[in-house]
């Protein structure tokens, strides 16, 4: 009887065993290993690693301007994505929420860039920005602004902004789809009732739409921050971090530190610091949104 029971229980565990094994090997182990390696000095090959305590972190915080510069670059793109990209997404969502003709066609088109890979998008835009044959320069010449022509991705003044534009082009349709769904989930009766009470468009927007949309706004902002701070594919396919360090971002730095200069421990310390920053940012966002909902 007891044996039967144990067998039965064991059978239940077998259902979760494959998932757990994969998770333990490829998620849990690397996650813990990062912390261990972050206090080591190790080239990734030799069997011996040296314990350096918090040395990696000290060096990273005090003596690695390139890393913090890369963080600043990612932040620049993130701020643009949070404002310009999400504003465009919101405006488009409002326009398509009005039962507009062809609304679904627009939705399908706007969500097209988000389903493509960063590599493909980057490679196509490379050519649009090209200094000699780029479409953008052709277009500027055509409308009489030929003086502005340049190699957009290799000019230090424009490279980061050019990358940001690619990222926003790829991303706005995603924000649009989520915001539109949020708008469509607001019951129409609420709007009608407000109108009957004599509210104008602005009051309806201010007192019905905005409060009900706050959770959606928070979700979109958190995912925009997490996604944009970890930007990588588009950078690799366009500038590779250049010119100089002008478009370096945290992930390109981490990969470079790892496979480029074989400082595995140091790269892990970068990963830990970067991960903690991302975690703190999303927690602050969730806190703020909870406070706003209570007000």
């Amino acid at each position, binding site marked *: 009887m007891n044996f039967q029971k144990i067998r039965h229980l064991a*059978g*239940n*565990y077998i*259902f*979760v065993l*494959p*998932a*757990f094994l*994969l*998770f333990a*090997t*490829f998620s849990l182990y*690397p*996650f813990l*290993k990062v912390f261990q*390696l*972050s206090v080591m000095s190790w080239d*990734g090959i030799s069997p011996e690693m040296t314990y350096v305590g918090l040395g990696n972190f000290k060096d990273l915080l005090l003596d690695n301007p390139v890393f913090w510069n890369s963080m600043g670059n990612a932040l620049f793109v993130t701020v643009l994505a949070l404002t310009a990209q999400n504003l465009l997404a919101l405006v*488009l969502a409002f*326009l398509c929420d*009005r039962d*507009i003709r*062809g609304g679904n066609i*627009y939705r399908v*088109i*706007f*969500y*097209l860039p988000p*389903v*493509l*890979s*960063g*590599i*493909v998008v980057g*490679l*196509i*835009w490379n050519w*649009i920005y090209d200094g*000699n044959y780029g479409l953008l320069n*052709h277009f500027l010449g055509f409308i009489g602004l030929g003086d502005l022509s340049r190699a957009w991705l290799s000019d230090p003044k424009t490279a980061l902004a050019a990358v940001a534009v690619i990222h926003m*082009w790829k991303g706005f*349709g995603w924000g649009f*789809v*989520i915001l539109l*769904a949020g708008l469509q989930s607001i019951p129409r009766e609420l709007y009608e009732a407000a109108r009957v009470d004599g509210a104008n468009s602005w009051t309806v927007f201010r007192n019905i739409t905005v409060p009900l949309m706050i959770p959606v706004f928070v*979700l979109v902002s958190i995912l925009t921050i*997490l996604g944009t701070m*970890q930007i*990588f*594919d588009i950078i690799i396919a366009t500038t590779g971090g250049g010119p100089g360090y002008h478009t370096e971002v945290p*992930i390109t730095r*981490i*990969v470079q530190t*790892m496979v480029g200069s074989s400082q595995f421990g140091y790269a*892990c310390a970068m*990963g830990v610091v*970067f*991960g903690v920053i*991302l*975690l703190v940012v999303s927690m602050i966002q969730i806190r703020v949104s909870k406070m706003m909902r209570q007000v």
Partner: protein
Amino acid sequence: MSEINYEIVKKRAINFFVHVFLILVSLSCLFPLWWAFASSLKTQATVFTDLSLFPKIPHWENYYDAWIKSNFSLYFLNSLFYTATVVIGVILIASMAAYAFSRLQFAGRNILFLVLISTMMIPIPGSIIALYVLLNKLHLIDTRLGYILPQINGGLALGIFLLKTFFDDLPKELEDSARIDGCGRFRVYWHIALPLAKPAIAVLAIFNILAVWNEYILAMLVLSNKSLMPLQRGLMVFQGSHVTQYPLLMAGIVITILPVLVIYLMLQKHIIKGITAGAVKG
């Protein structure tokens, strides 16, 4: 009377400008893609000077060259293989676990569930380094398995979460009567629960297909042997070694995009429903 006319005119004018704006944004989405396609049909000699969107003499042979001579057939088949294996792996492993979390009793069930789906919430940008170290130790660098297993694991959190939610909402009667008829756990899961979960599995499959097809960073770290590379990695290698062969590069890009485009256009309703359902609920 005239007041009504004024209202109608105003409404039409607004509608007109709204459509103009939406069409402009749509064109900005479509134009780069069409331009890549048009360029893939030009020759190396004309591609920089001929800016036409409909090349007069389309050079379809570029596709033959890209497919055969530039290895894109190889990359394509690799991508197909990786996508199929990862998606099947995720569906099988995630659905089994999800079924257990929803229906079976065992100690530590809730904690295990939370741990397994925690990877969805915690950003761990550094763990790719340790993953690389691990794959190296297991001698899985530059192997298909080393590229497949981490990606199956990557799809599990969302899959388990999605399918558990689905199983939780499913009535239990069918399974109960099957059990009374003497079916074991595994047969109930395989013959009854799994077929019923088709809608959720479809959503899961679509998301994983797109994710695996578009994956790059793991392919970059794990695969350096050309014969193992998927399309995204192949594109970067091609671009690195043939900087100036734009028409062929664009043909490679079209080859890479086409399957995504077909799947997206066929299943766009499910895809959009999938992202929005999760977002608006959560």
